[in-house]
């Protein structure tokens, strides 16, 4: 296979993976920030509800984390088993 083609594919994939991971990290951080800020607000309003609210916070945090995790999995797929290199005959 043409080495220039391989270099092009690998470098584009590397930049793309960087952008993908940045977006996933940003989304995850913003999501957790919003969930936890509402949790603290809820504690401030009703301190006696703290354990139930914590359970709900962890649960919704785990739900929110699903899509950054899926995105992370796909980015790792590009890093370790690059389909574009496979398609180009590498």
């Amino acid at each position: 296979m043409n080495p220039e083609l391989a270099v092009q594919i690998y470098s584009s994939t590397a930049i793309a993976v960087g952008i993908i991971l940045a977006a996933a990290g940003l989304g995850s951080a913003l999501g957790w920030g919003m969930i936890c800020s509402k949790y603290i607000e809820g504690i401030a309003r009703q301190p006696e509800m703290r354990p139930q609210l914590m359970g709900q916070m962890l649960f919704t945090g785990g739900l929110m984390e699903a899509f950054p995790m899926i995105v992370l999995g796909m980015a790792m797929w590009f890093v370790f088993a690059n389909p574009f290199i496979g398609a180009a005959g590498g």
Partner: protein
Amino acid sequence: MAQANGEGLTPVQYIQHHLENLHVGDGFWSVNIDTIVFGWLTFGLVMLGAWRMNKSLTAEAPSGIQSFLEVVVEFVDNQVKSIFTGRNALVAPLALTIFMWVFLMNAMDLVPVDLLPWLASLVGINYLKVVPTTDLSTTFALALSVFILIIFYNIKVKGVGGYIKMFLFHPFGKYLIPVNIVMTAIEEVAKPVSLGLRLFGNMFAGELLFMLIALLTAAAYLIPAQIVLGLAWAIFHILVITLQAFIFMLLTVVYLGMASADMDEH
């Protein structure tokens, strides 16, 4: 794999070697033997624990393990009671089994990354992945089983006609039937897909991070950093393991509850 011995492996080769399953066959028809073996081992552990507990249940002066299991059973029972509105004898035991089994499978991730593969290489097995839930097959098998149960309970409670009406008339009225069909179908399919991928993504990322931390021992001055980072990540991963098992169980109960609810007129 260029070199299979311990020395002379580049970091990329180390990671790629650890990410490969012990499989029989090729491509789509490959069967991951290590996933099956460890999945059945953890399931056997759950069943053995349940059977032993069953034989030695006492109401007065319960042993430590019995008290701990009582806490777990009560916890799952409370979740099911608060979410599942119908009357069903299958849901709570199903939720308990899913919780315990997924938790034990995830907990295999806490075993040091190289320990079991090294022991296996002494016997001649060169590739071993010990965490069954890092294999997409396992998580999707669990999610698809839940999906089949969702369809079954939908048809059982609403009837085939009621189930098809749910596709045709939700969420919009009767003038937008094609849109309704597409949106309801996407919603139904998104349930098992998100269940499987969420568990897989979390466990895969955790395992990858353990491997990357293990790679820090390449340079001698980094070994204290590796110990500290490994400890910190392992402690955090205990929370992630429990949380993911709990989320899988809770979502199973929620979806089965939604499937067993009678249709209300909008």
